[in-house]
């Protein structure tokens, strides 16, 4: 795609036109852009922008009693989706200029995914959770199908009313050449979100996701991502704590093999006092895979009593694998407890020998140790059903990785 550069913004451009122009002006960032130094995206310019079509298939159910929302070929497929339960509404964004304007106002000005996905919007839905919704509602956003020549730009808004509680699963297993989901979550005061995401896209896919979360006062977030598919995958999350006493857990596991490049990028904005954030990042890399973790925590000048913890650990299974970690703390308040740490290591030969000396075959022993390395990550998931879903995904990866 060639950027038709410098088209001026015109007064009556729609927000989506404006986003398109913003993207066109700069295109995909290369490694000269600091935030993309480890994961340049300029190669994505070769991907054609070609929306897919829904296959009409409904993906197999992953969780009992969940409300299924089918995104197929990058398009919202209402016919293959469940009806929304009481208290939850699903509306499409395509003709909702008000919702579009509101979203646009919250988008970072220069982010390629924000601009391109909003402009393209192959699917656009808003999920509004009202006080009438049941506490134990589970929504599944299932992203499926697509082909190497198709690209997907789903835009999802989740709007949680005060005091609501939701379980949200994002299951990415599509096969697009390029997937660029844009997710925007608004958590009103005292709402509670349990969120898990599995990125298991096809091995030819590029996946660049931007998720934004705006957390109000006394909110609770328990979010966990496992990123293991795709050729290049960047899971970027911007978390804004806008009300006091927000309790946020945002954790990630990445699992890479072959020549995969898996990037986890987080930007946490402690804008107000008394919020707590905890990030745990675990990565396992085999073959020539590369892992990147960039974690920025910003604490605003008056955000006193902030507690921000961040710890990343990578396990390399091969000499050719590489992990980069770039923690960044920007602290403008003085009464805060913030820490970060990053380690890179290998499997311990003594551990391996102990297991093998009990008759456990090497592959199985390695898989046990990989799982053990990841277990304190998975332990962050509070909801048992969601935990089981991701634990299975991790276990099957560990078994595959050690089988060869």
């Amino acid at each position, binding site marked *: 795609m060639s950027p038709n550069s410098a088209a001026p913004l015109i007064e009556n451009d729609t927000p989506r036109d404006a986003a398109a122009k913003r993207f066109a002006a700069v295109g995909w960032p290369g490694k000269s852009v600091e935030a993309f130094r480890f994961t340049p995206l300029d190669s994505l310019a070769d991907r054609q922008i070609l929306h897919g079509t829904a296959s009409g298939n409904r993906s197999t159910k992953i969780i009992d009693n969940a409300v299924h929302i089918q995104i197929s070929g990058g398009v919202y497929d209402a016919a293959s989706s469940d009806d929304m339960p009481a208290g939850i509404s699903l509306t499409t964004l395509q003709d909702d200029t008000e919702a579009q304007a509101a979203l646009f106002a919250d988008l970072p000005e220069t982010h390629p995914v924000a601009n391109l996905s909003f402009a393209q919007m192959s699917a656009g839905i808003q999920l509004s959770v009202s006080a009438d919704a049941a506490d134990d509602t589970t929504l599944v956003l299932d992203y499926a199908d697509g082909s190497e020549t198709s690209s997907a730009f789903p835009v999802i808004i989740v709007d949680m009313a005060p005091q609501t509680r939701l379980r949200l699963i994002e299951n990415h297993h599509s096969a697009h050449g390029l997937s660029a989901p844009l997710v925007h979550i608004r958590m009103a005061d005292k709402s509670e979100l349990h969120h898990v995401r599995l990125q298991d896209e096809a091995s030819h896919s590029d996946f660049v996701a931007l998720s934004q979360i705006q957390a109000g006062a006394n909110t609770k977030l328990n979010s966990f991502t496992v990123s293991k598919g795709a050729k290049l995958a960047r899971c970027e999350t911007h978390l804004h704590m806008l009300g006091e006493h927000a309790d946020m857990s945002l954790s990630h596991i990445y699992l890479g093999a072959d020549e995969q490049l898996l990037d986890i990028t987080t930007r946490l904005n402690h804008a107000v006092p008394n919020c707590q954030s905890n990030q745990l990042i675990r990565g396992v890399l085999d073959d020539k895979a590369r892992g990147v973790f960039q974690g920025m925590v910003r604490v605003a000048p008056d955000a006193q009593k902030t507690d921000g913890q961040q710890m990343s650990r990578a396990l390399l299974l091969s000499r050719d694998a590489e992990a980069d970690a770039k923690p960044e703390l920007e602290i403008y308040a003085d009464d805060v407890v913030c820490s970060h740490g990053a380690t890179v290591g290998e499997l311990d030969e003594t551990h391996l020998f*102990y*297991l093998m000396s*009990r008759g*456990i075959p*090497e592959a*199985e022993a390695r898989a*046990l140790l990989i799982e*053990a*390395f990841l277990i304190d990550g998975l332990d962050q998931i509070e909801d048992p059903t969601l935990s089981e879903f991701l634990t299975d995904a991790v276990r099957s990866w560990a078994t595959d990785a050690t089988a060869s």
Partner: protein
Amino acid sequence: MALLEIKDLRASIGDTEILHGINLTINSGEVHAIMGPNGSGKSTLSYVLSGRDGYEVTGGDILLDGESVLEMEADERARAGLFLAFQYPVELPGVSGMSFLRAAVNARLRDAGEEEVDQLAFVKMVRAEAKALGVSDEMLKRAVNVGFSGGEKKRYEILQMALLKPIMAVLDETDSGLDVDALKIVSEGVNALRGPERGMLVITHYQRLLSHIVPDFVHILAGGKIVKSGDKSLALEVEENGYADIANVA
């Protein structure tokens, strides 16, 4: 019949030869003890027997039940019936004790062409063995060896032996770290496994253990060689006079 034959075994760590030609035959039903000063090569021998990476055999042979194990990986040797109770059992953070024990037992069963045990039956089996060895349910729930006291780790080693029922067990200083009562419990556990079909090699510094697990033969390892062999009275002799005289004899 010879269960374990160690023939003129030479082994090195890196460029340093540690074992300088060891000969030892253990027949089924026999318990042999090895005593010897610190650094004489006892643990090295146990690692060489179990096939640890980095311990290179430079000469001789090791036969388990008549078959050379030199070409076998550690896990194959274990499934062939060799067991090592570690002098320093290894902590495995994040590895659940139960899944570890079950993986070990099932690997053995799979190899023998037998059906794997299901979780429920397995838990029952482990509980029964654990109780006899004074291993608490609470310990069973923890990650392997993590947070165990020195003595608890040793009991956990013997629990593994009881579950795996090896034909040849090497116990490396299983008595160190055990209190008097635990020593008795562990010894009873070991003695329960003594039998005509099994052989044992007990490495220790103390006669005390050998009064519970009475050996048929005692060998003194010094400087990477067996310098003297005898019956259980040799252990008493060591206890009284130390190794100085024996080393002089050699």
